């Protein structure tokens, strides 16, 4: 980010922080803890869904069902949870723009979210046409394993980044 970008981002945060909605969120004490709790519950939905889908790929869990069955069962939960996270996240940003938007760890978290979304789409789309897509060849099985490991690492990274935002706030 250039110096000019940083100044205008901070100006935007200052403006946002002074809006009636932001002030309402800031001054109604139960809002931020409650919205954060909903945010965490939604993360729990994603972490557990990603765990069962990707640990299955790696042969470590959920042995009685196929990849396609598990994708059908659990990936919709990830998409719904992401919607709730977008909404709750937006409320948290509006309430505390200076804590999030200029924060490098927050920005990293957003990049990781985009990566996780891309990986999930990449895994899900072929399965819709062909339920055994990821089993059809050694290359496909290896690819699915890579997607599984990288996805799990990215989701873990997102959780760590989420917690670390609080520790990376500028003084």
């Amino acid at each position, binding site marked *: 980010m250039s110096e000019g970008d940083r100044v205008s981002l901070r100006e935007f945060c200052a403006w946002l922080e002074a809006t009636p909605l932001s002030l309402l969120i800031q001054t109604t004490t139960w809002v931020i803890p409650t919205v954060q*709790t909903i945010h965490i519950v939604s993360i729990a939905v994603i972490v557990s869904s990603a765990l069962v889908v990707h640990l299955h790929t790696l042969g470590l869990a959920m042995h009685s069902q196929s990849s396609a069955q598990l994708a059908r069962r659990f990936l919709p939960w990830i998409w719904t949870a992401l919607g709730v996270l977008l909404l709750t996240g937006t409320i948290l940003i509006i309430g505390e723009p200076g804590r999030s938007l200029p924060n490098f760890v927050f920005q990293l978290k957003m990049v990781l979210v985009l990566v996780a979304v891309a990986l999930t789409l990449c895994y899900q789309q072929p399965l819709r046409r062909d339920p055994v897509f990821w089993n059809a060849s050694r290359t496909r099985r290896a690819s699915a394993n890579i997607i599984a490991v990288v996805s799990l690492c990215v989701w873990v990274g997102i959780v760590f980044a989420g917690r670390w935002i609080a520790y990376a706030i500028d003084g």
Partner: protein
Amino acid sequence: MDLTAFFTWLQQTGWAVAIRQGETLFPLIESVHVLAITALLGTIAIVDLRLIGVASRQQPISTTMAEVLPLTRIAFALAALTGGLLFASHAVDYSHKAPFIAKMLLLSVALINIGVFHLITARGIGAWDNELKVPLAVKSAGAVSLGLWIAIVACGRWIGFV
């Protein structure tokens, strides 16, 4: 029972001091704690939603439990271990915080709920394993569990605000 003397001793042990005074050790352990809790809540929810009859409806309850609960146990062990370390680092402080005490009380009730379900209610599983309409005791176990673990997460978050 005044445990303050014990908590004072606990937070003065070498490792508790290291966690409290280190720059990254506390955030690191805390992040693992949050990760473990999300895995714990999420996997428990899979089982609870099946008990209530709203998800994983195509499989027997025993299958859902057998597949998911091993992950839940690992998540719980990790959450308990990291939680113990975090608590120890500021033991006296946490022991006086209402949200922390509430979290521990709710956790105890949640564990009792699990115990009652596995030791008593689930004895009759043969009769309702494949059903969506299950006895009230079974549905309640699932609903109570889900409510308790969400409340535990809420209390955990609340600790940081007091």
